[in-house]
């Protein structure tokens, strides 16, 4: 990594003449990285007061003597000095000052210089986010911030995304971070009604985002008090800069395919496997005619053919598709000294890799800033979005496209007896088939059902600042996040086998979430000699009201009527208004001494409607300190060290994301066939309060070689106490759970960040690398075992969601029975590793951890002349995945007629066979209970984004009156390296996902692999 500072400008020196002669010098100042003009550069003749500034086109003109030195200075860029020579025109390219790079970071209620930061804030710049062909901002952040684990539940568009900042800190309350856009907390909770989460952040056009700051430690986050325990994501949108109006148009078009497939049996293999399973079953139980039965079933599934292999269908071909996507972004920004603006619009049209899934987004934004006087500024952000999501059933429905793999490969896609889709019609009844194919055919839903969620979203806020005295500023903000959603579903009469509702079912919801916030605070900054103070204090009030109604109706005259107004019968209707509010007071003081000793104190008092009468207000303080060692005199000899800073912080944050009335004793409606009724639904807990997370962070920032290489290392410990736990109570009480502050858990880990400018100059190569390790452990659960699904549990001493159950031991080599390791305790205390075929006799043990041990990413950006190349890898390591569909698809053909994965061909056949697949036994459920049989490693490394771009030469585009034209090719999720045999290792079945239920695959769609071609135009 040899530094090669661009020195061509210095060549000017060679032609310097020593004649002292006054002359007019003019020129243009541009930025070195993109050639854009820089307005407002101070151009001064060194040693004099003579100078000027560049205009909006970056142009300047001044009179100077030969030999005089002209200095060009601009915040954020390295100062340039030029000695006046023969030339009358001196054009200057200014480079970004590496020392000041990313200098300003957004923090809660303000900004700070990164140098002065004592907390841990990860920053992702717009360049790393913009233009990525994904649906929501979190997906574009994947792999780009240390300690931020981002996982999509599956490949369905606009659905739930798990974000864990430094691990999960709660069992029953939310583990998602607080999202704040331009200072206003926004609604990020799913508003979905179909059992799979949606992601309200998908309404955001993330090409409007200037930067994302992730507040990770207590020092950074405590100012958000009771909602900061999971970290805070601050999203700041772009604002105009004074200067000429810049227009930009970005367009891309592309296509997505699935990242992977699972291998299933073909027709011949299926017939062989099922027949063998029937023969084996008959040998064990002669009382039932398994073989004859099997033959009749095979004939049924082969659409009546006695030649069972007449058809050979690969059902995955039916539901996966090459899905097109198109997106156009336009923006204009600019302004003058007084008024600046940023205006943008986006239209995005994405199709899912699964048939029937699509997502459209239309957004418009205007951010306006006005300087009324030197003291008074105000501005407004206005954002409108409309999204339309054509959704699919959740992963647990026969109608979700990927459950099609359960159908037999011997079944034709179109039933030749009816020339309609298999299952659509039984000629004898005139109704859909009831038992052909094996299950409901999801293809029937493609044309006979829809589920459209349409969201109108308005994020708007206004602010005003007034400077009373130099350094003393008051800022007031009012913001509203208005989310209006309609969901419209119609399930046609042909879907009856899936819905259980003959003659159609309509479902309609409207949801209005009005979430408004006001922040009012004073900021005071003062430098007195070696002391610098920066104080912030104020209040915040937030109220959110959610009004939702829904109607379900049945009995439609025909499938031509798809709206509930056509229904004869209203079967369910509900209205569910609910509210919450937060009233908060916050303060922060930063103190800096001699530019090297940093101290920061912050705190927030939060009151919430959600908590018990006895614990309505909570206090969340944090303290941190930093020492910029590199400023010390004893460091001055170490020239290669540009920055060395030690940081430490400690503080408390809270988690308040529980249901709005969790502290109340409640009765809820329990009607009985037309009579109104009620029943107790919740026990009262007047003591209910926040979960508290005490977090300690020690960090080191280190950069060398003029900041060409910088390191950040952090160690943290997060100890959460008073867990908001839906604690199991004795079922004999008539209640099942009681929400109580009980239990503890902890996360500890390390984070590494390395960024380096490997090459600078004409050929540039920059690398940014992050890696984080987190260890989650539940330390106290009051003796409970929580978790209701197959294997995910919360257990004391183990990470959240750990897989807990019987340890599978393969097939008995003598008879092919499924075996389990006993894991019982011997009298001498040792563990009995003997095996048993009695599932219940085997003890349950910890089988694996769904939480990754390591998460990380590496971004490499290259550029040479007009060519740029960006390569982003992202990965997780050390997590396990449980295939909950294994009990059907990899069941030794012993659990019904589901098509089997090809690994079942390894099944035990003869005494002496050693294999992990028990003998095929029709209906004998040979080893299909949830066990480690279906758990595999989920580590993966992914080539997340690969982008190759080409900037057309200036000469060409200036003729077109443009400033920039770039064409590019990009691929998302191009390569995935994993040992996981399923569709895709980034998975958590949407129907079951929760804090505890993690790492489950259940017919979940893989991630899309997307290829795009695009063009960026600037003028």
């Amino acid at each position: 990594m040899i530094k090669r500072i661009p020195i061509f400008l210095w060549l000017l020196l060679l032609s310097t003449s020593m004649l002292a002669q006054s002359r007019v010098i003019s020129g243009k100042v541009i930025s070195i990285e993109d050639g854009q003009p820089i307005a407002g550069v101070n151009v001064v003749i060194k040693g004099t007061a003579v100078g000027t500034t560049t205009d909006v086109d970056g142009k300047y003109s001044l009179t100077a003597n030969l030999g005089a030195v002209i200095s060009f200075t601009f915040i954020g860029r390295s100062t340039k000095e030029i000695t006046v020579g023969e030339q009358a025109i001196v054009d200057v390219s200014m480079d970004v000052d590496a020392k000041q790079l990313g200098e300003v970071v957004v923090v809660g209620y303000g900004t700070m210089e990164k140098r002065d930061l004592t907390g841990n804030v990860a920053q992702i710049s717009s360049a790393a986010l913009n233009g990525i062909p994904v649906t929501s901002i979190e997906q574009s952040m994947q792999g780009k911030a240390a300690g931020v684990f981002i996982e999509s539940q599956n490949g369905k568009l606009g659905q739930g995304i798990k974000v864990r900042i430094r691990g999960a800190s709660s069992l029953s309350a939310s583990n998602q971070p607080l999202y704040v856009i331009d200072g206003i907390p926004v609604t990020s909770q799913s508003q979905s009604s179909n059992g799979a989460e949606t992601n309200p952040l998908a309404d955001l056009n993330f090409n409007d985002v200037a930067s994302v700051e992730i507040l990770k430690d207590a020092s950074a986050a405590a100012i958000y008090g009771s909602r900061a325990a999971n970290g805070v994501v601050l999203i700041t949108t772009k604002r105009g800069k004074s200067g000429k109006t810049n227009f930009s148009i970005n367009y891309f078009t592309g296509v997505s395919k699935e990242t992977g497939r699972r291998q299933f049996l073909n027709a011949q293999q299926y017939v062989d496997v099922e027949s063998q399973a029937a023969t084996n079953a008959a040998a064990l139980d002669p009382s039932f005619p398994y073989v004859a039965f099997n033959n009749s079933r095979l004939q049924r599934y082969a659409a009546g053919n006695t030649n069972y292999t007449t058809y050979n269908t690969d059902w995955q071909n039916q539901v996966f598709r090459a899905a097109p996507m198109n997106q156009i972004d336009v923006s204009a920004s600019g302004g003058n000294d007084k008024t600046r603006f940023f205006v943008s619009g986006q239209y995005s049209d994405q199709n899912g890799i699964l048939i029937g899934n699509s997502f459209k987004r239309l957004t418009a934004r205007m951010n306006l800033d006005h300087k009324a006087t030197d003291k008074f500024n105000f501005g407004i952000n206005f954002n409108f979005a409309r999204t339309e999501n054509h959704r699919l059933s959740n992963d647990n429905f026969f109608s979700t496209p990927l459950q099609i793999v359960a159908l037999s490969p011997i079944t034709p896609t179109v039933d030749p007896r009816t020339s309609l889709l298999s299952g659509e019609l039984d000629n004898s009844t005139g109704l859909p088939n009831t038992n052909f194919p094996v299950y409901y055919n999801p293809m029937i839903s493609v044309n006979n059902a829809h589920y459209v969620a349409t969201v109108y979203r308005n994020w708007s806020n206004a602010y005003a600042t007034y400077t009373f005295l130099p350094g003393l500023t008051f800022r007031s903000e009012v913001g509203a996040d208005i989310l209006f959603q309609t969901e419209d579903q119609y399930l046609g009469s042909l879907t009856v086998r899936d819905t259980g509702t003959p003659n159609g079912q309509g479902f309609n919801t409207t949801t209005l979430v009005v979430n408004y916030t006001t922040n009012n605070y004073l900021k005071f900054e003062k430098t007195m000699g070696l002391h610098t103070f920066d104080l912030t204090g104020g209040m915040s009030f937030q109220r959110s009201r959610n009004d939702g109604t829904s109607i379900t109706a049945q009995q439609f005259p025909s499938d031509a009527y798809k709206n509930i107004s056509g229904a004869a019968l209203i079967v369910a209707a509900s209205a569910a208004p609910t509210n919450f509010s937060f009233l908060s007071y916050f303060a922060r003081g930063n103190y800096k001494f001699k530019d090297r000793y940093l101290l920061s104190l912050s705190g927030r008092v939060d009151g919430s409607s959600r908590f018990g009468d006895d614990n309505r207000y909570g206090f969340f303080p944090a303290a941190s300190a930093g020492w910029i060692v590199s400023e010390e005199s004893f460091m001055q000899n170490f020239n290669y060290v540009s920055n060395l800073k030690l940081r430490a912080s400690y503080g408390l944050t809270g988690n308040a994301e529980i249901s709005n009335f969790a502290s109340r004793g409640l009765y809820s409606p329990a009607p009985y066939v037309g009579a109104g009724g009620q029943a107790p639904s919740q026990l009262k807990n007047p003591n209910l309060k926040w979960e508290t997370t005490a977090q300690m962070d020690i960090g080191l920032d280190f950069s060398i070689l003029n900041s060409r290489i910088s390191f950040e290392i952090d160690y943290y410990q997060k100890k959460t106490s008073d867990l908001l736990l839906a604690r199991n109570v004795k079922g004999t009480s008539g209640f099942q759970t009681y929400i109580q502050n009980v239990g503890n858990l902890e996360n500890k880990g390390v984070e590494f960040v390395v960024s380096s400018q490997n090459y600078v100059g004409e050929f540039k190569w920059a690398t940014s690398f992050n890696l984080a390790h987190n260890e989650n452990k539940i330390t106290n659960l009051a003796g409970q075992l929580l978790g209701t699904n197959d294997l995910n549990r919360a257990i004391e001493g183990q990470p959240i969601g750990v897989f807990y159950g019987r340890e599978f031991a393969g097939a008995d080599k003598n008879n092919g029975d499924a075996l389990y390791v006993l894991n019982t305790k011997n009298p001498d205390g040792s563990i009995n590793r003997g095996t048993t075929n009695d599932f219940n006799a085997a003890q349950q043990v910890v089988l694996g951890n769904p939480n990754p041990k390591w998460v990380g990413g590496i971004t490499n950006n290259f550029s040479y002349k007009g060519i740029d190349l960006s390569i982003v890898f992202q990965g997780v390591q050390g997590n396990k995945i449980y295939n909950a569909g294994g009990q059907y698809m990899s069941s030794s053909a012993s659990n019904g007629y589901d098509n089997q994965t090809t690994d079942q061909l390894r099944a035990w056949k003869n005494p002496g066979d050693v294999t992990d697949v028990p003998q095929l036994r029709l209906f004998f459920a040979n080893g299909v209970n949830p066990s480690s049989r279906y758990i595999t490693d989920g580590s993966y490394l992914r080539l997340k984004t690969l982008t190759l771009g080409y900037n057309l030469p200036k000469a060409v585009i200036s003729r077109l009156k443009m400033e920039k034209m770039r064409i590019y090719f990009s691929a998302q999720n191009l390569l995935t390296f994993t040992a996981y045999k399923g569709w895709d290792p980034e998975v958590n079945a949407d129907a079951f996902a929760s804090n505890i239920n993690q790492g489950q695959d259940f017919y979940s769609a893989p991630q899309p692999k997307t290829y795009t071609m695009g063009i960026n135009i600037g003028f």
Partner: protein
Amino acid sequence: MKISNILKSLMVGIVLTSCNNQLDIQPSTSVDASQALLTSKDVKGTLVGAYANMGSTNLYGGGIYVYSDLLASTGTDINFFGTFQGLTQISNKEIPINNTFVSGVWLNAYTTINNVNEVLAALSVVNSVDRNQVEGEAKFIRASMYFELVKLFAKAWNDGDPNSNLGVPIVLNPTHSLDDANVAPARNTVKQVYDQIISDLTAAETKLPPPDNETYYYATTGAAAAQLARVYLTQGAYDLARDAAHRVISSGYYRLETNYSDEFPYIGRAVRIYNKPEDIFALQISEQQGTNNMNNYYAQSNLGGRGDIEIASDFLNTFPGGDSRLSMFTDDGSGSLFYSDKFDNLYGNVKILRLAEMYLIRAEGNLRMGTTVGNAPLSDVNIVRNRAGVTPLASVSIQNILDERRWELAFEGQWLSDYKRSATDVATVPATPWNSPSLVFPIPQREIIVNPNLIQNEGY
């Protein structure tokens, strides 16, 4: 006024205005418990809620009957082909202690019991005219829940000593606070549970009125007597069972449908049908409320069900010739497996107690006691056979009655109890002894964990 002054006042105003009252937000879709049981109407509403909970899918919505029949299945009668692994486990008689269907029965039953305990504790609020009826209905519901629990989670009455065999915990007081919920009841004996059931049902029979019309569907004195007849039959107290059944039959409020299929009507579309004259007690399902879980598992998919359970031809072959009850089966196309059509109506009620069974209980009671209270045993059995269109018997044995019950009450959740009380092994391969621990549910794992006083059943 200068801008700065305006701002200053604005700021001070905003900051100082107390928003504290903004933190007091009342729920609007639920009611605070302290406001829920203030009036007579409130208490009656809570009783309605208890019916709703009793009708949950795991209980009298049908689950209890489906699970118990699957536990009693042999492979040559009913077969579970569905994808719910928990039901496969029950059907295979290999139930892990965390089976969610098992814990669902336990939890929902105790939720229902707590509902009626709330009602019983608030009886003084009920207006005096309705008080007896409210008490009687509540006690009928409580007794029914304990009866189902003790049958599924404990050894049979005739399996060893009911005085020492563990039943289920008896809880008679409502839970109002965490302290109440923290009480850790131990399992009462089988005998104590039966005593409680009989005491509640006896009180209910006295306090409840007869049905005021044929479609009436809340608990009546007849329902209490009919349930009592079943309880006594399970205990082998044949005289008491006979008498209770006789009280129901002789009350005159009930009559058999002319055709067996009329008792399980399906008129070509799913529609709510109120009680039939033969129904003594049934859980109602409407388009808006309740789920017919029998339909869910037995009915074909175009009738709203999943068609998970199919009936083997071996079982159909055991029916007497010309039995009209055989018309309630549809070949699935294989010739060897059939769907039952008894539950084709998605909104049909779920039969809990019906008159045909009372004839068979009275017959069995009389036959075993050598009496003819109300009618001769042979005549009672032939009443049921006649309605089914089967040749009347010339003479009757206990086995005849047990067979008749198996056909008449097929898939209505009585098989397991009949095997056990008659000490008949279940004809699986190899046979499962009638008193096998595998024919008893485990106490749910979650319950064992939270309540150290509970002892797990043998075999788990």
